[in-house]
């Protein structure tokens, strides 16, 4: 069995959140994807570049909103400009309406999840995000 060349990336400045998230997502999707975590936007870009070099495709990014340096909505907008096919999800403890609106408009935000989140919501959002990819993209996930 080879290691998947498709990844789900979680970005949050809080390690406890990252660990919880990663284990949660891994539990549901098993070996199908790689689960990457980054503690800051800078680290996220590093991970993205590395994965890019290794030929791994990031399908979904789940990002916190309030982080040092760049905010989640700005980050997702930048992501969308460079990788328009990546599905973007905001996860935040505090809903800033304008930021969410901005992300909807400029980052094609797939969903916004409020902290504390329920596992069901998170998994549904990721699943529907992946589903959206299947519909849109030509390279199919079968096989």
């Amino acid at each position: 069995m080879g290691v998947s060349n498709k990844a789900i990336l979680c970005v949050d400045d809080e390690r406890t959140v990252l660990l919880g998230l990663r284990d949660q997502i891994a539990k549901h999707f098993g070996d199908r994807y790689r689960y990457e975590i980054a503690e800051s936007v800078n680290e996220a870009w590093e991970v993205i570049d590395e994965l890019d070099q290794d030929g791994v495709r990031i399908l979904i990014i789940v990002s916190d909103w309030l982080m040092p340096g760049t905010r989640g909505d700005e980050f997702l907008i930048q992501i969308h400009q460079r990788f328009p096919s990546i599905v973007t999800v905001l996860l935040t403890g505090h809903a800033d309406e304008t930021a969410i609106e901005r992300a909807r408009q400029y980052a094609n935000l797939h969903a916004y999840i409020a902290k504390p989140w329920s596992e069901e919501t998170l998994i549904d959002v990721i699943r529907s995000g992946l589903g959206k990819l299947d519909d849109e993209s030509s390279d199919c996930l079968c096989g």
Partner: protein
Amino acid sequence: MQSKPYKDSILIVDDAPNNIRVLVELLTQSGFQVAVARSGEQALERIPEATPGLILLDILMPGIDGFETCRRLKANPETRDIPIIFMSALTDVVDKVKGLEMGGVDYLTKPIVHAEAIARINVHLSLRQAQRRLVQEEKMAALGQLVAGIAHEVNTPLGAIQASISNITSSLEQTLKELPILLPTLSPAQQASFFGLLDWVRQSKVMLSSREERQLKCTLKQKLADYQLPHPDRLADTLSKMGVTAALDPILPLLQAADAPAILETAYQLSIVQNNSRNIQLAVERATKVVCALKNYVRQDMVSAPVHAAVAEGIDTVLIIYQNQIKCGIEVERRYASLPQLLCYPEELIQVWFNLISNAIQAMNYRGKLAIATSKQDEHIVVQIADTGSGISPEIKARIFEPFFTTKAMGEGTGLGLSIVNDIIAKHHGRIEVESTPGHTVFRVWLPLNFSALESNRIRKQ
């Protein structure tokens, strides 16, 4: 705001029994609670025990006169805010002016005209109350701004806890199915290394970054291949997820088992239980800190005795409350010396740090460097708060501690922050200095370590 009954009490300080009788009658009829002191000395003795809402102070008295009594009341941070109305038969303008200069709020000429006296007293009582309410409202407004940020601070650990619980539940469910079947198939040596592995995972507090995990996986794969073990890929995958950076020798018996991948998978599930439990603990600590910080901030105006406390803790409380506004654009440098505890009013000091830090953040427009340092100098604890903000121009530097002095837009600042800071520091017998050039502003607070000696000195002097 409900005013406490004693706040509406009035203390008459006069040596003439006749005057006292007339005033007591008048004031009682008008619904005030009245207390009497027959000399300046007696007044100074009594006031700390039962703080009146207002003082009617005769000027000419044997012993210390009204002016001196007033001076001493104004010198004490605890009594300086009580409004004082001077009374005297002196109609001399010079005396009226002197009384007002000494900090009196008004002047009544004897013989006292009843209606006028009551009207003036009422005006000053309600002014005082309005002022107190304003200070309170200011604090509440600041609190309101913080609530949104704090929602994030609390929801984040809550989210982590919720996720971790669901992870623990499913991992437990899975291992409970597998473990009873798996364990009997393991030799004693294999069992020992199974539990050894779990111990190792529990004790290693590090959480690897994705990149470290990937590098670890590569290294592990190589090592496993060197040992000529089957399934190096799957084993490396599971081991790296568990963050196993230790030598592989102790778990070799396990890795050599025929169903090593399944065994490791079970160990991994158990490590999820361990890691997520620790995660919950961390998250609870985080949430507790935030809640404590909030409680510290709101607890206030309690007439309490000073206690020994660590100054740095109060500063950290404020930094926790402000975490959100700080973390996006402000670099915080904390240099705390190891210091003795300080006898102080910790909640009030928190307000000092709160105001100084929020001023600094605002002056930097939420971007820049906030440097906080504590040290011990000349039997004082010195707290220094520096920012890289706009700075304070020389023209206004002398005025910033005045109540209601602000350069901020309407609704942004009331200008009460630094005057509150000043009062609280005075209460601690400390002092505050400020140095500022554009791009570098430092507030330095000096708090004496011999608070109790200074305090008893003050009381003796009265």
